[in-house]
């Protein structure tokens, strides 16, 4: 994975320009472009934000106003893997709080933090539409349902081992 300090790679810039061209106005591609950057680097650094703003003909301030508005756009670095544990109502009823405590205790971090080895970030998230299998969570892009402490422990081990 390239680092977030380096300028955006040329193909990514090109891809963003294509996205922008598909919109009636380039700014329509703002979220899509930021998501692309995040998919590549894990988060959106200020340098990258400025570059994207430039490509879309927006000011950095304008684009950052959009970026900071959304829950899923990370303006701070995250670990290699992001566990988003649902904390909304159905999962709460089904016990997401003790699960979150367990997860954080095991990892030695608070919700919102990243483990020292940079492997895992834990973020509480709003309902992810898996309420029939509550408690649910999203690990990177994969949905997990009926989560319990056993499968959490197993998951942590797997994630630590995968890049």
């Amino acid at each position, binding site marked *: 994975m390239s680092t977030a300090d380096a300028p955006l790679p040329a193909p990514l810039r090109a891809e963003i320009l294509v996205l922008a061209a598909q919109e009636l106005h380039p700014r329509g591609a703002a979220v899509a472009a930021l998501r692309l950057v995040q998919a590549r680097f894990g988060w959106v650094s200020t340098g990258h934000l400025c570059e994207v703003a430039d490509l879309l003909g927006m000011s950095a301030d304008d684009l950052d106003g959009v970026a900071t508005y959304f829950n899923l756009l990370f303006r701070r670095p995250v670990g290699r893997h992001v566990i988003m544990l649902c904390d909304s109502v159905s999962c709460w009823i089904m016990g997401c709080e003790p699960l979150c405590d367990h997860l954080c205790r095991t990892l030695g971090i608070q919700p919102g933090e990243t483990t020292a080895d940079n492997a895992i970030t834990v973020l509480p998230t*709003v309902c992810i539409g898996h309420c029939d299998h509550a408690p649910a969570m999203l690990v990177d892009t994969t949905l997990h349902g009926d989560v319990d402490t056993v499968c959490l422990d197993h998951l942590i081990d797997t994630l630590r081992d995968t890049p």
Partner: protein
Amino acid sequence: MTLLSDRPLTAMIDPAAGPPDCAAYGRAGGWQAARRALGGLAPADIIDMVTRSKLRGRGGAGFSTGQKWSFVPKDPASERRKYLIANADEMEPGTFKDRLLLEGNPLQLVEGMILAAYGVQAGHGIVFLRGEYHLACTRLHHAIGEARQQGWLGENILGSGFSFDIHVHSSAGRYICGEETALLTALEGRRATPRSKPPFPQTGGLWGAPSVVNNVETLCNLPHIIANGPEWFAGLGLGEDGGTKIYGASGRVTKPGAWELPIGTPLRQIIEEHAGGMLPGYRLRALLPGGASTAFLDATSLDVAMDYGSVEKAGSRLGTGMAIILDDRTCPIGMIRNLEHFFAQESCGWCTPCRDGLPWVERLLTAIEDGTGQAEDMDHLARHARMLGAPGRTFCAHAPGAMAPLASGLKLFAADFTDHIRHGRCPLPAAHGGMNTRQGAPS
């Protein structure tokens, strides 16, 4: 034949097999409606059929779909930029029906969008998809690609002279994006605050152009209405409303899930038959019938028919039709606190009562739950429920939605509130329903 099934929306959905491809979709009766519409129906015919089908929006507000479309200026798609947008934001806690439709049969949505777009003569289609729906995103992209390849999307579809294509916008997470005007703002690459109406989206929507926003489930009904006729569709419903509805249940029921049933199916049937009743050892205390922003109903309301009018009469809203069940061992105050935390956090921050009122509500509830509540906190909660609950006081329906469970909960669980404050703690043996671990629930 499959399409005349009484479960038209889910007939082709087979979680084990994955979504049908274009050919399978056609074999099972797909594309009939699109062929029929583009082959000879006038746009006005489509609007008329949908109006007669008694289809009401499945996004929560329940507005007549045909009527909504009738406000769109009638110019042909080739002459004026217009948008048809599928609202696939689905962030209402407890709701997962659109995800099932998107993952299970994305082509059905594509065909529904073609029909809607043809009806309102929109040349540009957008699926506003919730960012967390990764699988749906992949499948939708695949389906759209396939449809495009087969000539169902693009220039001059089936030689009809009508051109239409669909673009998927993956959002980046915020409940308010589901509100149709905030959704438009989000599509413009802006902070997704709602917009004032007028202009209504139908006349001045995305980039100022006429736009229609419909829920995924609403749109998925269209192929069946056009293929089988509005009367057939209207007849599917048990009461006033037409068609089927995807109902669901989550919480401590035996078989949480979602089921397509005739609209107007009694709540009791949904919970007792389809969801298999409560888990052993739990009793139903109350429920939110249609997502987090609907008012609590208690066990006495179980015989209500789940259609728009009846649920409203019972004191709540049909909403998304996805019920959240509160059992007797879960603290209702904890549950309301959890809901208000969600609403406070998802407030867009535009209007004062919602932005600064909801966090106050959340803190009051937290205090009460933690045992540091004070007697006058009840007045504050009631005041907020009153001040934020009535429409027109906040800029959009987010805050009134947030107050629905609070206002109803204050009445229904009055004793629980008093107990918490008086004893300075949660009187339930295992404080917070959430402390109970899952006990042998099937998945």
